[in-house]
């Protein structure tokens, strides 16, 4: 069964990948329950659809903005809104202020991964004018296995594993499950990591590599991303 209902020519592998992502979003982790992970995606949707708050306005500082029974801690909601609507304004001091509010650094990395994926999948649907991916029901059982990777703070603000490759591919390395989700999306919407630097001339999907890199660079500039 297709993830999207549309006459637009969405490649089957891309359609399937977005369906897989929704299932992965419901998979509990060591840091966040299934219900909390799905709440992250729902909160990203709220942040995308709402009138934007200014970067300095944290949702937790606005009376009544966050429901009393919200499954996520206030600091996580502040991360979701800031990262969704003002990613280019983040600083190391801001990150440290979030961690000081009882968000574990590895839990924070997982949160970044989820917020980033939701921004990808939902903005794709919005751009095509199709219904966003349906979210599954939360999974009741706790199946998460804690990563046994050794991680430390070296090059990034956040802890990373000692892996090779570009820094941006190392960014989520402390949470391999989220790094895998990133790779799933990358392989159907950009180019597979293995081809990132090795094959610069082939056309992927219906775009040439030059067209792909133009859209990538223009989007990154609009998001005020230096990297």
């Amino acid at each position: 069964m297709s993830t999207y209902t549309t006459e637009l020519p969405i490649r089957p592998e891309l359609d399937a990948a977005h369906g897989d992502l929704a299932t992965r979003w419901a998979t509990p982790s060591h840091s966040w329950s299934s219900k909390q992970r799905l709440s992250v995606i729902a909160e990203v949707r709220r942040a995308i659809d709402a009138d934007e708050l200014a970067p300095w306005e944290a949702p937790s500082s606005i009376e009544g903005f966050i429901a009393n029974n919200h499954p996520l801690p206030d600091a996580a909601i502040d991360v979701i809104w800031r990262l969704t609507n003002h990613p280019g304004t983040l600083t190391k001091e801001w990150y440290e202020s979030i961690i000081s509010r009882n968000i574990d650094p590895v839990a924070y990395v997982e949160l970044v991964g989820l917020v980033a994926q939701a921004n990808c999948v939902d903005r794709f649907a919005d751009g095509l004018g199709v219904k966003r991916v349906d979210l599954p029901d939360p999974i009741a059982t706790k199946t998460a296995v804690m990563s046994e990777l050794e991680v430390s703070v070296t090059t990034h603000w956040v802890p990373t594993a000692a892996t090779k490759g570009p820094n941006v591919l190392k960014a989520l390395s402390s949470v391999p499950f989220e790094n895998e989700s990133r790779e799933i999306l990358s392989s159907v919407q950009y180019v597979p990591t293995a081809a990132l630097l090795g094959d610069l001339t082939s056309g992927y999907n219906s775009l040439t590599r030059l067209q792909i890199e133009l859209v990538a660079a223009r989007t990154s500039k609009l998001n005020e991303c230096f990297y």
Partner: protein
Amino acid sequence: MSGVSQNIDISFEAISSSTDGNGGVLHGELLSKLSEALWSKNLNELTAVREELVNAAGADVFVDAVGVSAMFHMMTRIADGTGTPLDAGTDEPSADIREAIGVNDLVSRRHMAT
């Protein structure tokens, strides 16, 4: 690098704005305009550029371009949410490009400690 390997004369203006040319890339202006409409979430602009791009290049190009742009809404959030610095060895070689596309003054500027 892609342009060099294909012996194509490319430039960086389409990265800075959709009104400054196509950068030597086929449908470059429209692709840049589409990226802007997706970022601003302006439905009127999106509808207009969608029609232009579908007519000029086809619906598959429109769908895949939306996919690439959405992908980079993800990658920018990963980079800036984790404090990802420029890769070692890319700092100096990218200096001219950074100047050309005007990103040196961004808050998100981060370099590897040397």
